[in-house]
């Protein structure tokens, strides 16, 4: 049999025919993290040199830092098997058929619009409610408010950016802050000028796209003196992603007399390790409020913190965690009283079900000289069955005079009396339990915008279905 001659079309094509494709630099996604990958990311984004250097320095710190020895076991994370940067076009690897059934079902039950579903499931990279966003955007611009994604901010507001970026959470803060600083991409950037009140909550939701909800997003919010802003991140609907690691950094500066509220509703799919560093510094008579809800992910480790830098500063953390089967929510808050006459409260509500584990981990620290501070921490945990687990680890350190610090926690199951009362009114056990759980987290839901609160209640209802026992 004659052997067909082997023809390599690519070979000496150029010489033979005298033409070739112009050499274009195309970023090829590679797994793992090296200095070259970081340089490419920075080059792709067209960043100034200082940022490239900061990224490289952070990478060195990341390599040196150890994983935390407390909390969840993170040793299973394979840092070499992660895509640290993907262009949004490359991300569309998932098709609707690949999206897990339970996620689709939840979309159905929550009544999420079709286009939004595709985005949340990672099928499409863009979901923009253009009209809403643009009219809003115009109004904000008129007020002098900057609300954009963080990459754009670096290009368009370089001075503001450089002044604050990485000052609240330096790369050396912890291993994941270092990782984020090395490979960050996306996130939100907000600047609210002096005295400006932003009436409606700013939601990443208005202009969600892949850039915005990345794996290593970086958010920076600056509230100038006397201003107010409410920022909402995430959404109640589950977000499906094939990325196994989500490691964001959020830095917030709240200047004199200003107030900032940051609401998070985290509902990543249950394959995600969600390791986030969030910190705010608060100056005289200013207020920072973290409203933090964690529903999804396999493991969350997140402790929003407030540094109370000047007298009259106030910090609030309201944290809710729901851990179902196979989930571990290690959440809480930190209040660092640096100045006298500062006040803080932390309220934590957690629910464990079906073998899930919730941990409250918090730290209240009062530095020497920070006299006349007040701090109160309250943790309530609800265990819905005997497979689940709840832990409380509050650290209270007081090093100043006339400081009043209190901590309280309770762990309980759904009370038999409450259940009996509801069931005696003809309500089924499942419905009754759902009502009790919804009541339990009410302090959280009532702080949410209405549409979120409604969705959250529905979501709890879904989670509770079939949990009778």
């Amino acid at each position, binding site marked *: 049999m004659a052997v067909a001659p082997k023809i390599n079309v690519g070979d000496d094509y150029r010489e033979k025919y005298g033409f070739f494709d112009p050499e274009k630099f195309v970023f090829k996604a590679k797994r793992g993290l090296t200095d070259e990958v970081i340089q490419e990311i920075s080059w792709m984004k067209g960043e100034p040199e200082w940022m490239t250097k900061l990224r490289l320095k952070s990478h060195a710190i990341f390599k040196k830092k150890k994983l935390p020895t*407390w909390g969840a076991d993170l040793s299973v994370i394979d840092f070499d098997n992660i895509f640290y940067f993907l262009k949004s076009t490359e991300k569309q690897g998932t098709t609707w058929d690949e999206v897990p059934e339970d996620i689709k079902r939840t979309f159905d039950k929550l009544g999420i619009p079709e286009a939004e579903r595709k985005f949340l499931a990672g099928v499409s990279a863009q979901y923009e409610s253009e009209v809403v966003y643009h009219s809003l955007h115009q109004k904000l611009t008129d007020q002098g408010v900057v609300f954009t994604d963080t990459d754009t901010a670096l290009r368009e507001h370089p001075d503001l950016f450089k002044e604050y970026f990485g000052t609240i959470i330096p790369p050396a803060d912890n291993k994941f802050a270092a990782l984020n600083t090395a490979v960050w991409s996306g996130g939100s950037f907000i600047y609210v000028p002096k005295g400006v009140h932003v009436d409606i909550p700013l939601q990443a939701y208005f202009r969600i796209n892949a850039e915005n909800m990345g794996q290593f997003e970086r958010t920076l919010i600056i509230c100038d003196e006397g201003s107010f802003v409410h920022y909402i991140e995430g959404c109640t609907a589950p977000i499906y992603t094939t990325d196994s690691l989500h490691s964001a950094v959020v830095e917030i500066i709240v200047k004199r007399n200003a107030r900032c509220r940051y609401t998070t509703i985290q509902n990543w799919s249950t394959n995600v390790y969600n390791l986030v560093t969030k910190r705010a510094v608060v100056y005289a008579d200013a207020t920072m409020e973290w409203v933090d809800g964690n529903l999804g992910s396999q493991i969350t480790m997140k402790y929003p913190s407030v540094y109370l830098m000047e007298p009259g500063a106030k910090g609030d953390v309201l944290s809710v965690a729901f851990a179902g089967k196979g989930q571990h929510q290690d959440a809480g808050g930190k209040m660092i009283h640096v100045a006298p006459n500062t006040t803080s409260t932390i309220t934590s509500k957690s629910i*464990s079900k079906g073998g899930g584990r919730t941990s409250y981990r918090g730290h209240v620290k009062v530095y*020497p000289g920070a*006299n006349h501070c007040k701090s109160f921490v309250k943790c309530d*945990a609800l*265990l*819905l*069955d*005997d497979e*689940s*687990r*709840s*832990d*409380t*680890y*509050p*650290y*209270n*350190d*007081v*090093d*100043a*005079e*006339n*400081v*009043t*610090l*209190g*901590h*309280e*926690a*309770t*762990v*309980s*199951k759904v009370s038999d009396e409450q259940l009996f009362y509801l069931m005696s009114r003809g309500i089924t056990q499942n419905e009754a339990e759902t009502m009790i759980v919804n009541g339990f987290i009410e302090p959280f839901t009532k702080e949410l915008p209405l549409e979120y609160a409604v969705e959250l209640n529905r979501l709890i209802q879904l989670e509770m279905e079939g949990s009778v026992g």
Partner: protein
Amino acid sequence: MPFTKESVEEIASLHGEPDWLRTRRREAWEVYERIGLPDRSEEEWRRVDFKGLDLETFAAFEPANGAAPGLPIEGAAGVLQQRGSQPGQVELEEELRRKGVIFMPLSQAAKEHPELVRDRLFSEVKADRDKFAAAHAALFSGGTLLYVPDNVEIERPILGQYWSSGGGAAILPHTLIVAGRNARFNYLDEFLSPSLDEPAFTSGSAEIFVGEGAAVGYVSLQKWGRHAYQFANQRAHIAKDGSARIFNVTLGGRFAKVRCEANLQGHGASAELKGVYFASGDQFFDFHTLQDHQTGDTTSDLLFKGALEDTARVVYAGLIRIEKGAAHSDAYQANRNLVLSDHAKATSIPMLEIDNNDVRCTHGATVGPVDPMSLWYLESRGIPTATATRMIVQGFFGEVVDRIPFEQARHLVEEELEARLG
């Protein structure tokens, strides 16, 4: 007698201890030599500063010397007085002896009643817990066994008193209490020494075995001099329907690292862990407590209250652990700190690990100054500030002092606190 392997052998020979105990001392010494000082990056030791403590400089044994102080309480049913490291002198009512109560130095008990001591000694307070526990297990000297047989009730308290008058030595008494089924009694351990220049290494550990249905009250009153570094582990093992009421009073020492633990092993077991402390000058106290609910239908109730003055530092860290099968458990834990000076520092870490849903667990912690409203109220009634403050502090301690298991100890602790308030 320095801190060496030879000293371990010598102490064992001195008391004519049986071979099994000698072996156990040797094993503990091996642990002591093998492990280093606790790593200060570990959570339990992060806030503990034992700089300036050099174990090798201590003498392993202190001969009996110094004038014996009086007894802290009157009318005890039995008294053991230990001077230095020398096994103590015992007095016990004849009637109790007849009922089978055994009360004697631990070294003697190891020889005469191995069936009581052998399986229990260092089974709850383990030698390999840390280097200090290993030193204690290898070099303990004197100490006490109290055994109260089944169904024996003792009306009046039993007293152990440990006195040291020389600095530079290790004073390591160990109390082993074994309560038979339905036994009922109260016990007071008093540790004291004058304040000396040379540092001392002290313990004051206790293992308490509470039999089925038994009720044991145990009070430990620590008044070591300000030269002492104390490392103590007190732990109760509580069987079905047994109850232990452990009360820890820490007043003395330059440094005290105390673990106070209840191991609830049987259904219906209950434990009360109470503590009171008063830290002044440059004292450092660290308390780690554990309420370990291993089975269901168990209850535990913990309250540690203390006042801080001057530049004193206090760390409280407590854990309630409810194991998976421990349904219908009820646990409470509270730590309250009254900070009386600008430079004192309190750290409070009450922790919960709950693995079962059919439980009731609550805890709380507070750190705060004397309540200005209460002070103002008293002052408005014509009471001078100093007196009013004193009254408030007394009231603060009252809540926990009232829970001391027996009256004699309650009066004693009240007097001690009075003296500290000046």
